[in-house]
């Protein structure tokens, strides 16, 4: 083989982590980073790994990864985002949180076992299916899953092709803090919870999402929340 001819560029290497042959959603930001940023990140990561051989401390590696994410997604100067607003609605909170009924909506892609929203009308889609079909999800009409707030944590399922769900599989509360809300209610830190929480796959068509919103809002309002907690992923 002619190594010169077939040598992989750093750009191709970076891109392969974002739905490519090295797909890893924790590191898809490589595609957004520059070659220099990616190289600097990898060098720093390996340097701290060398320290961790002795210390066992992953903290510096995690900090490097965090900073790399923040840098990679920082908006470039002078670029106007597609969705930009000078003002927005503001509803006053009229009930002290300790007395308030709190609701929740997340974009984490959670649903209750047996109540799969079945994207594309297909039952049994796996996480790998969702990753492989992320382009279709981004053109799809989102479906709002209703999750009773007394759902046993073990009955939650998650599927989302836009982020690494391994942490959410270990503990749903990292993206859908249902246990934390129940503890807050039981401790009296909040007055109560709505009967139903909500989740959808946030990697979706924004145009089709906005078409759904009037119906979603009507349903959410039925829950009578004094405050809605929103958790994007």
């Amino acid at each position, binding site marked *: 083989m002619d190594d010169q001819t077939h040598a992989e560029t750093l750009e191709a290497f970076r891109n392969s982590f974002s739905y490519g042959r090295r797909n890893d959603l924790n590191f898809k930001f490589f595609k957004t980073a520059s070659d220099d940023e990616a190289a600097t990140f990898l060098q720093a990561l390996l340097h701290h790994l060398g320290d961790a051989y002795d210390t066992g401390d992953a903290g510096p590696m995690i900090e490097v990864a965090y900073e790399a994410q923040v840098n990679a997604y*920082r908006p470039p100067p002078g670029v106007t985002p597609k*969705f930009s*607003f000078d003002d*927005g609605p503001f509803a006053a909170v009229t009930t002290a*949180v300790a007395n308030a009924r709190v609701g929740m909506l997340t974009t984490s892609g959670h649903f209750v076992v047996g109540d799969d929203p079945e994207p594309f009308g297909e039952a049994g889609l796996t996480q790998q299916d969702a990753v492989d079909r992320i382009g279709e999800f981004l053109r799809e009409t989102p479906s709002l899953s209703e999750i009773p707030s007394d759902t046993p944590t073990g009955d939650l399922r998650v599927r989302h092709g836009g982020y690494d769900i391994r942490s959410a599989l270990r503990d749903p509360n990292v993206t859908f803090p249902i246990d934390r809300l129940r503890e807050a209610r039981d401790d009296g830190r909040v007055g109560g919870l709505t009967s139903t929480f909500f989740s959808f796959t946030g990697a979706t068509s924004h145009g089709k999402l*906005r078409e759904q919103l009037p119906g979603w809002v009507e349903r959410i309002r039925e829950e009578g929340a004094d405050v809605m907690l929103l*958790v994007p992923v």
Partner: protein
Amino acid sequence: MCHVSVGHVARAIEGSDVPTVTIMTKAFSHRATEMMLPRTLVVRHLLGRPMGAAHDVERQARVLDAALALAESATTVGTVVELPDPYRPTPR
């Protein structure tokens, strides 16, 4: 994508007179100001872990309480507060 999606949702819910508070990871927190969300708590956490690491009950509760405190204290649209605690792996 998710942070823009939640921006549309937040504006719609708030527009129906239901107060919202949004928890955003730092990497995408610029969406809060771009989309002029009502109240946003920014966390210095890794993507995919907005509330904290798996089974880090203490941190997850702290994030929740900070978000709810912000809901109560914010008086104007576009309020953004950053929680200073850096991400930490699950305490052993």
